[in-house]
C-alpha cells in the first residue's frame, strides 16, 4: 500500500484525494494546505490526517502529490527533492522555463520518480483519437482544431493573476499543447494571441497556432471567456489525408440526470481519467519504473507554452529553439 501525502487542498487537490480513494493499491495518508480549513475538510472526507507542516508530510509518506498554484511549486519541490521521494506534480510543470529547467535538472540528479498531471493523456476519447492517428486511419494529419474551456474558474483567485497562473495559455492551452506534441512530435513554429495578461483577469481567450516539423498545422483555442455557469467543453476536429476525426464533449451524453437545481451529465467509466492518471503514478512507484508522462515530456510542453506566451506578448511568431 503506497501512502500518499497531498500538498494543496484546493479544487484539484480534492480531485486527487477522490482518485486515491478509488484505488486499492494506495491511500491518502496526510493533507497539507496553508489554509488549515481546506486540509481539514479533505482529511475528514477521505479519512486522512492533517499535517501541521509540509515537512511532516515528506517525512511520513511514501509519495507526494503536489497540487499548489503554479508559481509556488518550486519552493515546495526544493525540499521534496532532498528526500528523493516520488512526486506527482500538477500541470504546468512550472510558471517559467527557468523554473522548469531547474526541476528537470533536479529530477535527473536525484533520480526520483517524477510525473506531471497532463491528464488529457488519460481521457479515453483523446487516447482513442491518438490511436486512430497512429494506426493510420486518417492518413497524414494535415490540420487540427482543438478547443477547451468555459467560464473563468470560480474556485480560486490565483488564476486571475497572470504572474501566478500564466492565464489561459499556460493553464489551459498547455493541455492541448502537450497532447498534440504526444501525437504529432516536434513543433517548429508557434504563434499565439491572448486577451488578458493582467493581474486581474476577468475573462481570457487565446489561440495558439502550432506548426509541426511533420507539416501538421494545429490551431488550439483555450477560453475563460464564457459567462459563469456555462459548461466546460472540449472538442477536436482533425483533418487527415484519408479522412477526418471529430469529437465534441457536448455532442453525446452517455448519462444525463435532470433534477431540480442540480442537473448533471456524466461520461461514466470504470475508472475516471484522474483516477487512471493516479493509478499510473502509483504503479510506477510500486514498480520503481519510469512514469507514463515524464518530466522531459512536461518540460517540452512548458517550453512551447512559454514560447506561445512570448509570441502573444510580442504579437509575432516564434521559431522553436531560437531559430528566430
Amino acid at each position, binding site marked *: 500500500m503506497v501512502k500518499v501525502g497531498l500538498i494543496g487542498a484546493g479544487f484539484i487537490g480534492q480531485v486527487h484525494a477522490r482518485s486515491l480513494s478509488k484505488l486499492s493499491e494506495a491511500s491518502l495518508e496526510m493533507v497539507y494546505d496553508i489554509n488549515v480549513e481546506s486540509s481539514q475538510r479533505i482529511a475528514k472526507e477521505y479519512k486522512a490526517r492533517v499535517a501541521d507542516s509540509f515537512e511532516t508530510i515528506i517525512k511520513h509518506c511514501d509519495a507526494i502529490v503536489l497540487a499548489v498554484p503554479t508559481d509556488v511549486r518550486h519552493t515546495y519541490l526544493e525540499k521534496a527533492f532532498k528526500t528523493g521521494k516520488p512526486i506527482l506534480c500538477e500541470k504546468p510543470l512550472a510558471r517559467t522555463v527557468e523554473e522548469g529547467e531547474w526541476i528537470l535538472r533536479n529530477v535527473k540528479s536525484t533520480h526520483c520518480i517524477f510525473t506531471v498531471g497532463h491528464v488529457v493523456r488519460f481521457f*479515453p476519447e483523446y487516447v482513442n483519437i491518438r490511436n486512430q492517428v497512429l494506426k493510420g486511419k486518417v492518413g497524414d494529419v494535415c490540420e487540427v482544431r482543438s478547443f477547451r474551456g468555459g467560464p473563468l474558474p470560480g474556485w480560486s483567485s490565483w488564476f486571475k493573476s497572470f504572474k501566478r497562473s500564466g492565464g489561459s495559455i499556460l493553464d489551459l492551452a498547455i493541455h492541448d499543447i502537450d497532447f498534440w506534441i504526444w501525437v504529432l512530435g516536434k513543433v517548429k513554429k508557434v504563434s499565439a494571441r491572448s486577451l488578458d495578461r493582467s493581474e486581474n483577469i476577468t475573462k481570457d481567450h487565446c489561440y495558439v497556432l502550432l506548426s509541426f516539423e511533420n507539416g501538421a498545422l494545429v490551431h488550439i483555442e483555450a477560453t475563460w471567456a464564457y459567462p459563469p455557469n456555462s459548461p466546460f467543453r472540449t472538442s477536436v476536429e482533425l483533418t487527415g489525408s*484519408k479522412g477526418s476525426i471529430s469529437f465534441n464533449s457536448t455532442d453525446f*451524453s*452517455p*448519462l444525463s*440526470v435532470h433534477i431540480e437545481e442540480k442537473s448533471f451529465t456524466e461520461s461514466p467509466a470504470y475508472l475516471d481519467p484522474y483516477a487512471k492518471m493516479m493509478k499510473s503514478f502509483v504503479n510506477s512507484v510500486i514498480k520503481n519504473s519510469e512514469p507514463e508522462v515524464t518530466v522531459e515530456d512536461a518540460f517540452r510542453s512548458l517550453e512551447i507554452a512559454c514560447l506561445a506566451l512570448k509570441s502573444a506578448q510580442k504579437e509575432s511568431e516564434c521559431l522553436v529553439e531560437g531559430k528566430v
Partner: protein
Amino acid sequence: MSKMTVGLISSAHVHADSYVEILKSSDAFHFIGVWDDDQNRGKRFCNLHGVDYFDRFEDLISTCECVVVTSENVKHKEHIIKCAGKVKGILCEKPLAPTIDDAQKMIEVCAKQGTNLCTAFPVRFHPVSKRVKEIVVSKELGEIKMIISTNRGKVPPGWFTSPELSGGGAIMDHVVHVVDFLRWSTGKEFRTVRTSLGRQINKGLQVEDCAILELKLEEIPVTLDCSWGMPVSYPYWGEVKIRLILEKGVIEADVFSQNIVFRSNESHHEEWINYGDNADEAMLLSFVDFIRYGTDFPTAKDGLEATRVVEKAYESVKLNREVVIHGEER
C-alpha cells in the same frame, strides 16, 4: 490466480468475434480453441483470429474449464446439453433460448450435471448501466414512474433473419438486453406485454423487423422499441437508450454513445468509433469471478426470464392483445 482454460462452441453469432479477441489476449484466460458444427465457418473464423480449430468436439471440451456458446439461437439447447457435465461453467450467448421450453430444459440438464449455466448480458457490465442502477437504487430521485427505451440496430447478417435458425426477428434479437437491464437495475419482474408491429422496414425479410413493446414492470409502464430500423448509412451498429421518469427527475442513458466521429475520403457515410469501456471484456472477467468465487453474474434464470418476455411478446402478436408474463390474467 491460475488462468481459466476456455473454449468457444460455434462461431455463428456476430459477438463471437469480440469475445475471442478478449479471450485470447486477456491475462485471465488461456484460450484453447474453437469447435463449430459448420467446419468451413469455424476454420475461417480461426484463421481470421489466429486461434486453433478443433475437428472433434470431445478434444476441445476435455481440456476446457469453461466454454462460451455462440451458436445460432435454436442450437443453444443442443450445444448446452452436449457440454453439460463436462465443464464447470457455460456462458451462453443471448437470448438463452428462443422458447421457454428450451430454456427450462437447458437449466434442468445443467443443474443435474452440476454445470453453471449463465447468460451473456453485457449491457449490465457497462459503466453507464452501473451508474444508472446506482442512482436508481439510491432512491435520490424517488420511485420510477415510467420507462421509455430503445434497442434499435441495423439488420444483422446471415442466419439472424432465417426463422428456422434464429427463432424470430428483431423481437428475438433485441428485446432481451433492455429487459435484463431493467430487471437487474430495479429488482422488479415484468407482468404484461403487448406488442405492436409496424410496417416491414426491410423488404423481403422472413421475420419481423419493426416492433414496439408496451410492458408493465410491476406497476411501471414501459415501452421498448427493438426495431432493426437503422439504415445502412447509420454511423454505428445501433443504440441502447433508456429514459427513466422518476418522482423527482429524469435519467437519460445513451449507453453506447461515447464515440468519436470518423469521416472517410473513400466512403460517403460517417463512422462512430467507441471509446467507452469494453462491456464484453468486463462481462467475461466477471464470469471468471463468478465461477471462482460465486460473485454476482447473470444466470440462466435471468436468461429464462428474458426469454419469457420474448415468447409472450410473440404470443401477443398472435393473439393481438395484451398477454400476462407473470401473475394472474385480468
